[in-house]
């Protein structure tokens, strides 16, 4: 076997992780062995966070739609069933944004759905 020097392979691997650990407190952003653990945790939280984000936003939209509907004496559950029956494909994000930003279009939507 020819002689092999390890070169900068290990440094590059560790620097990659330390770059992700920028801004962490104390030795969590300076020392590789500690930073490695924190980066692993951070990546795990980012993974689950991406999935939670979708759930949380949908729940927020539903609460907002319900609030806007109840001011007009309607309920979210009956409204959604009426939407489905009339084959209106608007998603909850758009409807909640209408309720907050564009009141006239929201009222028009309610009238259209009630028929």
């Amino acid at each position, binding site marked *: 076997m020819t002689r092999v020097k390890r070169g900068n392979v290990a440094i590059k691997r560790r620097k990659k992780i330390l770059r992700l650990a920028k801004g962490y407190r104390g030795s969590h952003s300076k020392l590789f062995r500690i930073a490695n653990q924190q980066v692993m945790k951070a990546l795990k939280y980012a993974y689950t966070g991406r999935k939670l984000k979708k759930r949380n*936003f949908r729940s*927020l*939209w539903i*609460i*907002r*739609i*319900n*609030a*806007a509907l*109840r*001011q007009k*004496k*309607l*309920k979210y559950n009956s409204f959604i069933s009426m939407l489905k029956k009339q084959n209106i494909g608007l998603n909850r*994000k*758009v409807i*909640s*944004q*209408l*309720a*907050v*930003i*564009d009141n006239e279009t929201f009222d028009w939507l309610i009238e259209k759905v009630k028929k």
Partner: protein
Amino acid sequence: MDKMNNTYFPDNKYYEAQPTWYLIDAKNKNVGRIATAIARILIGKNKSSYTPYINTKNHVIITNSKYVIMSSGDEKIYFRNSRRPGGLKKESFNQLKLRLPNRIIEHAVKGMLPKNRLGRILFNNLKVYSGDYHPHSAQTPIEYKLDKIK
């Protein structure tokens, strides 16, 4: 165009300039039933710009809290403990209504608000009075009707 694409989030101080005051009469109403409505208003779920981490500055005034009703009035017990041995004190709904009527509604609503920093702040937006009089006429409270939507 971007306004519709990005979910609207109001400023932290959005509601500071426009607090809304609601007035609810508790005469001959069931405790739990008004408490759920009150908690919902305090949290801000009656406004379409609801945001879970912002105090929506919905204030609720309750009048006539000493006429509030519970169907199992003598069987409902309120406990408190002074943390000393043998310090458990019990009081029935009817007894507490004579002694401190405001506490009944406050206790019920507090249990229905979220148990975190914001929830504790929201509780301060609830004002309960045992009689007809309330000192908040300067805030021009809106009468809130507790109708069920069919």
